[in-house]
Structures are given as structure tokens and as C-alpha cells.
């Protein structure tokens, strides 16, 4: 039996559907454990992606990884799960390590594919510069799946949803405030990303980058120096020492393509580079390149995207 943990406090994310699909690929029997306020109708839809049953604890807000580890370990025992699956997002990173110790189960963190024939699982290592095959030595295992590594697949129909409670204990973490910028797309989950670097000269020039992102429905990102000097917020910094992302499309404007930057983005399926310098190292990692001045190319690209979107309706 496979147990999948999803966080459904803000509905069913694509990452959640990916983990359930992943569970289904590993085992015929998939139980989902979740917390939060999603409706039973919403949760029942997980059956379409392979869940045979969903258990929900509505008393747990999911903010304390210790509570979640207690809950998930107890449910894993109940359903005799030998594999527990998470998304390698903020919840997976906080809870899966705790659960690994609690269940004495080896953790494969950041899986990018289903297990190989020998049971090993591919993960990105060295910030995306290589791929390793990890195998657990324990009877039970925990796998956290890197978002956007597999696509959700519908294979079944709605499943039953049952409430559970009393397994999580109390929370030691008190939430004082939650700040979510309106309308922005979380970077690690974004399928399209527009990113810019020091080539843009100053924070006042990001208007066209945001316009391009809005036209595409993309998230925005930046290089490290741009976040360090405060032109952009820290959470937009991608690279070896920032966020590692693997969107379907990464558009890099005015970024040279230093090795530490590439480490965080070279898992992207398609890379477009806009740079005035035809020798910029980023072109070696790109699928499409434009040698030109961002201040001319980007506004043109915005218009072209808008024209394209208009034909799609």
C-alpha cells in the first residue's frame, strides 16, 4: 500500500495531483492523507488520479510539521503503507525528514522519476549538475517528488472520503501572520518563468518583465546579484544558492548564465535567452537565443505574445 500526503488547504494543487498519479504508478492501492478545509467533493476527485480512499483531518492546519509527522505515521500504520509519498515542496521538506526518523524509513528527497527496475530512484544532485540514483536500505521508504517532474494522469473515478482525527497531537507553532502577494504565481510550481538579471540596469526597468510575465501567465524570477542589491525580493532569486526550478519554459533576460545560476534552472524543458552579448555563456544552455537589447526585444516580445494570445480565443 502507498500512502500519499497532500496539503489541500488552498485546494488541490497541480503538485498534489502529481503525487497521487505517482503513487498510482507504484501501487494498485493508494490512500491519501490530507489536512485542511478542502470540501469532500474536491477531495473525492483525487480518485480520478488513482486514490482509492482519502482520509482528511480537518482539525490540523498543517503549519506544524511535528503534528503532520505524527498524523501521517499513525495513518501509515493503520493502512500498512510501505511507501509514503510527498511533494518536494515546503511541506515535503519540513515533514518528510521528520517522518523518516519516526518510521525508520529511508528518505529519497527530490525524486524526478518513478523507481527504476532495481528500486533506485533518480534525484537531481549537485544543484542539477548531475543525476543520482538513490536506494533505501530500510523496509519502508519515503519519496518526495520534485514538482513538475511527471504530469497528472486521470485513470479512475471519484473515491470515498473519510474524516479522521485525534492522531496529530497539539501544535507547537503559532501562526501570527500570513502574507501572500495578490495574484502572483508561486515560483517553484510555475510552468512558465520570466527571469531577468543585472543587464536590466535598475529596478525601475522591471515593468516590461512583469508585463511579459502577465501576458504569458508566467511567474517572475531573477539572478542573485539582483536580489542581493534589493532590486527584486529574495524569494525570486534562482540558482544554486536560491530556488531551483524546472519549469516548461524559462526566459532569461540580461542574465550572463554563470554556472551557479545555470545550476538552478538547467532542469527547465525549454530555455530562451535574450542578451546583448553573443558570447554570453547562457547561450550554450539555451534552446532559443536572441542577441539584442532587452529594452527593444522585450517590448516586442510582449506585443507578439499578446497577438498570439488573441488568436487563441
Amino acid at each position, binding site marked *: 500500500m502507498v500512502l500519499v500526503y497532500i496539503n489541500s488547504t488552498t485546494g488541490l494543487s497541480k503538485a498534489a495531483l502529481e503525487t497521487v498519479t505517482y503513487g498510482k504508478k507504484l501501487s494498485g492501492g493508494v490512500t491519501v492523507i490530507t489536512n485542511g478545509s478542502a470540501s469532500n467533493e474536491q477531495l473525492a476527485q483525487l480518485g480520478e488520479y488513482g486514490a482509492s480512499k482519502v482520509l482528511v483531518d480537518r482539525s490540523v492546519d498543517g*503549519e506544524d*510539521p511535528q503534528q503532520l509527522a505524527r498524523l501521517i505515521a499513525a495513518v501509515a500504520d493503520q493502512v500498512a503503507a510501505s511507501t509514503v509519498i510527498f511533494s518536494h515542496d*515546503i511541506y515535503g*521538506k*519540513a*515533514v518528510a*525528514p*521528520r517522518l*523518516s*526518523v519516526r518510521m*525508520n524509513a529511508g*528518505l529519497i528527497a527530490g525524486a524526478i522519476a518513478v523507481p527504476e527496475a532495481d528500486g*533506485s530512484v533518480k534525484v*537531481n*544532485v*549537485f544543484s*542539477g*549538475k*548531475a*543525476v*543520482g*540514483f*538513490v*536506494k533505501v*536500505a*530500510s523496509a519502508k521508504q519515503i519519496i518526495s517528488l520534485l514538482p513538475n517532474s511527471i504530469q497528472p494522469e486521470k485513470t479512475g473515478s471519484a473515491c470515498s472520503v473519510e474524516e479522521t482525527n485525534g492522531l496529530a497531537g497539539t501544535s*507547537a*507553532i*503559532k*501562526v*501570527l*501572520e*500570513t*502574507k*501572500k502577494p495578490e495574484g502572483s504565481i*508561486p515560483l517553484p*510550481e510555475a*510552468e512558465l518563468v520570466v527571469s531577468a538579471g543585472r543587464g536590466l540596469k535598475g529596478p525601475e526597468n522591471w515593468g516590461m518583465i512583469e508585463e511579459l510575465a502577465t501576458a504569458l501567465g508566467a511567474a517572475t524570477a531573477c539572478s542573485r546579484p539582483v*536580489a542581493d542589491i534589493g532590486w527584486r525580493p*529574495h524569494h525570486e*532569486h534562482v540558482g544554486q544558492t536560491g530556488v531551483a526550478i524546472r519549469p516548461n519554459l524559462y526566459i532569461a533576460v540580461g542574465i550572463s548564465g554563470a*554556472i*551557479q545560476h545555470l*545550476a538552478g534552472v*538547467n532542469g527547465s*524543458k*525549454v*530555455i530562451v*535567452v535574450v542578451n546583448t552579448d553573443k558570447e554570453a555563456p547562457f*547561450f550554450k544552455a539555451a534552446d*532559443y*537565443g536572441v*542577441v539584442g*537589447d532587452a529594452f*527593444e526585444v522585450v517590448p*516586442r516580445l510582449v506585443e*507578439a*505574445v499578446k*497577438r*498570439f494570445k488573441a488568436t487563441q480565443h
Partner: protein
Amino acid sequence: MNILVCISKAPDTTSKIAFTNNSTQFDENGVQYIVNPYDEWYALVRALELKETIGGNVTIVTVGTAADESIIRKALAIGADEAVRIDADPKDAYFVAMQISSYAKAKGFDLVMTGKETINYNGSQVGGMIAEAMDLPFVSLATKLDVNGTKLTLEREIVGGVQVVEVSTPAVVSCAKGMAEQRIPNMRGIMAARTKPLTVIPAEAVADLSSYVSYIMPNAKSSVKMIDPSNMDELVALLHNEAKVI
């Protein structure tokens, strides 16, 4: 405040990544090791700032061999008071976390800090594992940390935003960007580091829960297709028809 900062070594970010022994081992030939940037820039520097404002002691701990003492001296030069090396070749994250938690259990630290992840294995595992083994609360991916008596106020990353949370000490915190600014050690720090206490303790017998069986390098990109900068309609058409990403 008595703070323990967990330090890992990591290959310098410009290192050439290659594997030996039939692709089963990282090739350390010519590789320079540094203190993992998340541990150094964020966890260690914030710990030092806290000590400077409210007093206390900052101990660093690493699971490593004698060859790793250069990164320990670097962390001492930045300002840690003392260092502990648990003598073992660090294998999986579980092994490392078990060593550190069994050392830390009896020491009464108010706060255990780690970096968000290492830049070589990127697992983001050790902090949460230490917290579970010590039965302490864990705040992961914290970008801000303030102390008020026995209360910690933290900001942490959540999906699409940040959250302000409060937790009582003792606790475990993993540190991400925003927590502090990188500090370059000065000459005085480097000199002082030579005489600061470094205690070496033996590792406990712990079985690994996971291992890397082999490695591969990702496929290289085929060559780039150049687009005329005045023809962005062509780029959009290629992204739609050829790459199928929009």
C-alpha cells in the same frame, strides 16, 4: 542563548562535477571544499548576530573526517566560539542527523540551526531529522529570526508568500536567504580561529537508511536556435508549434 549551528562541507560552486569508480562515486580530484553557503551565510551569521545582541555562545558541529578541519576553521574565523567534529565520513542525511542529535541531546542548546539544504545533495533533510530525533519543534526555510526570551519569532517561506510564526525554545530552524548577509572573516578572526577549541568525538554506530548507487550527467542541450531580434512573432510561433510550451 546557547546555539548549535550544523555545518556541512560542499564543493566550491565552480567545481567540475564528475564521477569515478564506474560512476558510483563523486570524483573529488581537484575539488575545493567550502562551507555549504546556506550554513555559512544564513545559519552561522544569524547565530552570531543573535549572540552579539543578546549574549550567549555559538558552537558549530560537523560530521566529517580530519580533512574537513579547514571548513571548521573557516567557520570559527567568521566568529563561532567553539567547534565539535564528529569523526566519521558523512554518508546519508539520516546518519548525520543521528550523530548530531545524539551529541546535542545532553547539551541543553536553546536553538539548533541548519542551512536550508546543501548545494551538493540538496536534500533539505538534516534539520527535520534532528528535530524529530530530539522531539523538538522545527521551523523550516526560515528567512528571519528574532528572539524574545524563550520565544522565537520567525518568518518562513510558504507557497506563494511568507508567514510569521512563533515557537518556544528549544527548537530547530533551517535557514534560507534573507536571514543574514554573508560575512567575510577578517585577519583577527582568522588568527583567533587557530586557538579556539575544536573537540573531536567518536561517531556512534548508526546504519544508513539510504545510499547513492550511481550517477549520470544530464543530457547536453543540442545547439541553440538563434532568432532575429526584430522578429519576436517567430519566437512565439516556435514556442507554440515546435517547443509546445505555450
